[in-house]
């Protein structure tokens, strides 16, 4: 009785497992899998690009994973992925790897639209987030505490902000923390005394971008190099790229790929 039941279940199980295995070559043409891992800031854009890419390249599977810039770079060193994603420059000891810049992303300091402050120096932004400037009167507005909003520890935007703005100074413990670009924007949009920093792609009428050292953030000022709070989105490779992965990278650097990135609010090479 029992044996007969197993006699039915086992073959079914085997059939199920076989049908699940990726090596079943029942579809025409062999699939090429490109594995990409790294920065969670670059990940959504890579996913978007992969989505568009596979429409015209049906025999590709692009596997995109997060993990953070450092984990991505480590994976490239260990040759466990084809491409690594990074939202920071390579550090000493990683310099043997090749980098491909796919685009740039500006980080914009934003305030509430009612806030009359339109410009501040980079050092003033640093002092606000390190707690040395804590009142709007120090910036020529009314006598009211500044509600600074930062991102959580581990976020790529936060680490880029730490590198580009804080320059070794620590973000004050009393600073509020939100867990996404969107929530930072929401806080700044509702609190007239708030100040925060978000990715340039997300700036809209609900918040007001602040000019830094007299330069207002825009695609133009980023391209000319005058706006300084900019981070590159990099792909990292170990040695020469394998031809199939090359095809994907070429697509990203093509006009079509760059237009997709531009529509997402990033600064590409063609505009």
């Amino acid at each position, binding site marked *: 009785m029992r044996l007969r039941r197993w006699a039915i279940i086992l073959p079914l199980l085997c059939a199920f497992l076989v049908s699940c295995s990726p090596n079943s070559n029942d579809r025409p043409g062999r699939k090429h899998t490109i594995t990409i891992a790294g920065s969670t800031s670059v990940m959504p854009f890579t996913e978007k690009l992969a989505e568009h890419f596979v429409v015209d390249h049906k025999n590709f599977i692009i596997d995109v994973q997060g993990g953070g810039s450092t984990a991505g770079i480590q994976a490239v060193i260990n040759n466990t992925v084809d491409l690594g994603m990074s939202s920071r420059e390579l550090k000493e000891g990683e310099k043997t790897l090749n980098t491909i810049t796919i685009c740039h992303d500006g980080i914009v300091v934003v305030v509430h639209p009612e806030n009359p402050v339109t410009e501040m120096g980079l050092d003033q932004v640093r002092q606000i987030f390190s707690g040395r400037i804590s009142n709007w009167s120090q910036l020529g507005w009314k006598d009211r505490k500044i509600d600074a909003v930062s991102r959580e520890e581990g976020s790529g935007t936060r680490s880029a902000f730490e590198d580009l703005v804080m320059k070794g100074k620590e973000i004050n413990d009393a600073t509020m923390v939100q867990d996404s670009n969107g929530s930072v924007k929401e*806080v700044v949009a509702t609190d007239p005394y708030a100040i925060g920093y978000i990715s340039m792609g997300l700036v809209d009428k609900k918040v007001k971008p602040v000019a830094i050292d007299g330069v207002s953030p825009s695609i133009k000022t980023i391209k000319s190099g005058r706006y300084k709070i900019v981070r590159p989105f990099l792909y990292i490779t170990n040695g020469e790229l394998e031809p199939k992965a090359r095809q994907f990278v070429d697509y990203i650097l093509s006009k079509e790929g760059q237009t997709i990135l531009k529509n997402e609010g990033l600064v590409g090479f063609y505009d």
Partner: protein
Amino acid sequence: MIDRTVFKERFVKWVLVAFALSSLLFLFLIFLFILAEGLPLFLKVGVKNIIFGFKWAPTKGYFGIFPMIISSFLVTIGALVIGAPMGLSCAIYLSEYSGKKMKMFLKPALELLAGIPSVVFGFLGVIYIVPLVRNYLGGSGFSLISTSLVLGVMILPTIISISFDALVSVPKTYREGSAAMGATKWQTIYKVIIPSAKSGILASFILGMGRAIGETMAVIMIAGNALKIPGSILDPLRTLTGNIALELAYATGDHRLGLFSTGVVLMVIIMILNYIANFGIKRKIAK
């Protein structure tokens, strides 16, 4: 024939036992995994540096969660200050004053309150409470007082239902005896009923505390999540639960272990609270 019936009975019994034990198994597995992931960091960094450390910067090697432990307790106490008087009054009204019709209306309404998802509380808090606090009391609005207000409402159903049960279970003879001595209704409630239901009422407060300390979604949205211990009720703060949920997405390596350690501390606190509510207080009833 009889054999088959006996077999069926036994079969059903063992199936039920298996399912009943599986819930225990889940508890055990959760324990095991949190401890397995959380304890290594305690050994590596030291219990003192985690529990009494003031600085949380996990990517730079600091794992102090002392401010969060304090903040968790502050919001919990704040929630009790707001929720306990309201909840107890409601329970007294329900058990002593309200008529049958009122009870039939109020009880389901309270169950409905218990069923509202916490993200909805958080959303309402951000949209209404936070701006109110900012405009009338000052500060950014993301603060200890906003969080306590919202949590205070969230723990109401727990406090009301458990202290209501405690009040109702006070024997009728107590009330009659008190009335026979010439006490008024309020005197009876104040001097006889509440003291005899005391342990149940305390248990309801402590279970409410457990609910408040474990709440996450609403807290992240309203508390502001600053790492400092709040200096006033208008300052933002970060709780233990908030810390885990906030940083989970990007955490790798020691950072991730640090979040599990936060989970270990949280679990121990909730275990202590439940222990007090279940054993410390109920044993007193038995005496």
